[in-house]
């Protein structure tokens, strides 16, 4: 390779790098205080059908026209799930704009449908906030939703007839926009006050 072709390659690499950085910049989620906001890169959810805590269907269509925060866990979870639901409860209390809270629905989705009936979920979520919703479904019906949200979950040491087992699960809280698109993510551990400020900012800038 002669000197001039090296120079051309170097210039092309520089231009390429510059273009990549521009592309990367416009695609980079805006950084929230406590989470990630996907902006234009929000992804449509697939169709799904869960059963909510009132034994009603919960489908993608029902997420349209509201902001939703979803946390995935199980009621036999002693540590992470109560902490996360308490954080969500504290977050709602910390939002002082009623237009924001009325546009926001919190869901606890159980990835342990065998033990978590709608009745148990109703009891559980209302302990943290009477407006929180619970939902679950058989694993085959849950997986399209959890997979599309990057939520991993797995039963651990589950054997036939043994009621004592753990469920490993992602501890992220996902944000779904009023178009039923996956719009953002709050990684664990979440901070209630910071999440309240983030949700206020998001919803006030994107009113229903």
């Amino acid at each position, binding site marked *: 390779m002669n000197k001039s072709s090296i120079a051309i390659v170097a210039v092309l690499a520089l231009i390429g790098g510059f273009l990549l950085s521009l592309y990367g910049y416009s695609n980079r989620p805006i950084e929230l205080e406590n989470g990630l906001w996907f902006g234009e890169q929000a992804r449509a959810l697939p169709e799904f059908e869960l059963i909510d805590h009132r034994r009603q269907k919960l489908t993608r269509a029902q997420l349209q026209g509201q902001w939703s925060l979803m946390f995935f866990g199980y009621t036999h979870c*002693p*540590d992470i799930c109560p*902490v996360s639901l308490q954080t969500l409860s504290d977050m709602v209390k910390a939002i002082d704009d009623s237009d924001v809270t009325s546009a926001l629905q919190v869901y606890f989705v159980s990835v342990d449908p065998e033990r978590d009936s709608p009745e148990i979920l109703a*009891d559980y979520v209302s302990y943290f906030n009477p407006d929180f919703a619970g939902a679950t479904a058989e694993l085959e019906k849950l997986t399209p939703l959890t997979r599309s949200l990057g939520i*991993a979950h797995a039963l651990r040491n589950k054997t036939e007839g043994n009621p004592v087992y753990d469920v*490993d699960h992602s*501890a992220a809280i996902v944000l779904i926009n009023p178009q039923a698109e996956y719009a953002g993510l709050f990684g*664990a551990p979440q901070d209630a006050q910071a999440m309240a400020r983030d949700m206020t900012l998001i919803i006030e800038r994107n009113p229903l």
Partner: protein
Amino acid sequence: MPRLLLILTLLLPTSAFAELEFSDAWIKNLPPTIPVRAGYMTMHNPGPGTLNVVEVRSEAFASVEIHRSFMQDGMMRMEPVERLEIEAAASVKLEPGGLHLMMMMPHEPTSPGDEIVIFVKLDDGSEQSLKMTVVE
């Protein structure tokens, strides 16, 4: 009679053994349908030697285990901790998202404000008791 025994146990002098100091001992309350609770506290070892907690029990729960929550492959997992080591002049914090007491099957429904006695056993065979407060 069981209550009398409990009081006697609480009054037993244990100063012959090395002792832990407990603070901020609380249990996160959950509705009665949920059969698990998590307990948290700070254990401080003021002495000159390492202390090892090998068992925790409570008459208010069918079983109590020390567990640790940790992140692996993007998921939160829990594992039992058979032996909790607290070095000389050091503290170990049981706190949300990390080490905690996994308290299973309360014999009675718990309510905020309840005080629950638990026993902490060291590997030298000594046992200490403390009260944990149930928090909403």
